[in-house]
């Protein structure tokens, strides 16, 4: 396919800038041993053992269909993304693509195996990830992911439509 992909319009920039600033603040996580169970070190945003260890969750949305939820805590951050799905074909493609990635969550390290309800994909980043990875690179990766997911789904939709058209042509030639 040699059709060029148009670049991101500047309308998205405030949305991505807001996400970047929130992520940079939310990624200030550190090691924290569990207060509830001895010798355990759990991501507090998942366990929610005590209210004072959690930060306020933030939802940044462009419109009803495209949202991102950022929940922070003292030692972990959970980021959930709702991807734009305009029609049925995009819904199927999105679901397949997300499931493909979530099944390989172990290799991704920061991906969560199940998305939060009402969202399509979730990341869980703990202080142990922050100890081995650069924080600014993690933020860049999330932003990049957001931009690329839309592109990927549009490309796949084009590919599916053109393939369907070719198949239909070949099939209907028989009746010509």
């Amino acid at each position, binding site marked *: 396919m040699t059709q060029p992909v148009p*670049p991101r319009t500047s309308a998205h920039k405030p949305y991505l800038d807001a996400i970047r600033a929130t992520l*940079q603040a939310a990624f*200030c996580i550190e090691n924290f041993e*569990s207060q509830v169970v*001895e010798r355990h070190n759990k991501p507090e945003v998942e366990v929610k053992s005590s209210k004072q260890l959690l930060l306020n969750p933030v939802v940044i949305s462009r419109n009803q269909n495209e949202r991102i939820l950022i929940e922070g805590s003292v030692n972990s951050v959970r980021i959930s993304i709702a991807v734009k799905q305009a029609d049925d074909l995009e819904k199927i493609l999105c679901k397949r693509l997300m499931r493909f990635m979530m099944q390989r969550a172990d290799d991704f390290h920061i991906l969560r195996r199940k998305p939060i309800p009402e969202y399509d994909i979730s990341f869980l980043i703990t202080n142990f990830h922050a100890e081995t990875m*650069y924080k600014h690179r993690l933020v*860049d990766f999330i932003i*990049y992911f957001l931009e690329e997911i839309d592109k990927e789904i549009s490309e796949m939709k084009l590919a599916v439509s053109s393939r369907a058209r070719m198949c239909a042509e070949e099939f209907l030639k028989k009746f010509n």
Partner: protein
Amino acid sequence: MTEVHSFGNLPVIAHAWNKDRTQIAVSLGKNDVRIYHKQAGKWKLMHTLTEHLSRVLAIDWAPKTNRIVSASADYNAYVWTYENDTWKPQMVELQRTSRAVCCAKWSPQENKFAIGSSDKNVAICYYETEQRFWAAEMIKKKPKSTVTCLAWHPNNQLLAVGSCDYRVRIYTAAVKAVGDQPQPSKWGNIANTGELLHEFQSESGWTHDVAFSPSGENLAWVSHNSIIFAVSSKDPSRITMEITNYLPFRCILFVSESTFIVGGHEFSPLIYNYDDRRGAIEFVEKLDQQGASTGRQAIGEEGEFYTPYQASRLFDQPSMQTQSPEPVTTHQSMITQIVPYQTENMNLSKISSADLFGQVVIWNLSGK
């Protein structure tokens, strides 16, 4: 100006220097305390103190008596003494502590130390000479959440405790068994051990670190909502706040009576001045003078067209074109601890800071 020491890629959770700064004890996120000795400009591993069963969270080295206290997530603390070329551990009898011990600090005269833990306990430990073990005296009015930081007052009898319930408290820590004579101090009268003298609130931010000034008159702490607080003993009801635009700080250290240094998620230590008469905290300067470089141009700026093939190749780039500026600071990660390194004429002239990527940097403060 600045010396950078690297201990591999492991996070330096805690570090402490010995008296003449030739040895450093570090906790690299594992279950042991490693003591490195500087020989011919390189750090050699001299001793490994392995007694803990979980991550070592705090280390403090008493310079005069040459003892190390180490606190770990396996709810134990050990005091190590150097005898016959090895370090011998002795367990501290912490009754009723069933969660991780998060912080440990020797008192200025080094006859006792304080530890704080995840089960909201603060204990002051001293050596029972008759029965020859380290006994702990718990403070009864406990904080309501994990104790994250401790600081001793220079008079050896007051302790400031910061915790995750957004509060900083000052307790009395005079222990009769060690022969402390309760002295009057500007913060209040000291009668028994473990009395709560003052309680300050941080406005819904976890307290990350607390510090007394060298004379003990001023107390300052940093919390997770990027605010620096300071209070003076002359007027404990008036708390001075400085709301900063930086990412939260994790450590604070007084350099002189009115100047202190903070460091944390901002990757560079910053110097602030506290004027208790006017009640103001002013920013002085950033210790790391290198600015951030401008990031390389992001993908997809105006006028650029990429084919889908090119777009998919972008994932392979070793450094994805970053839109945020690459930090060119000396520290590439969060600063975990700032420890005094060298003192000259009652002021600190050098400090050392450790971060999560194995670096310990020594900063020269003279002339600031």
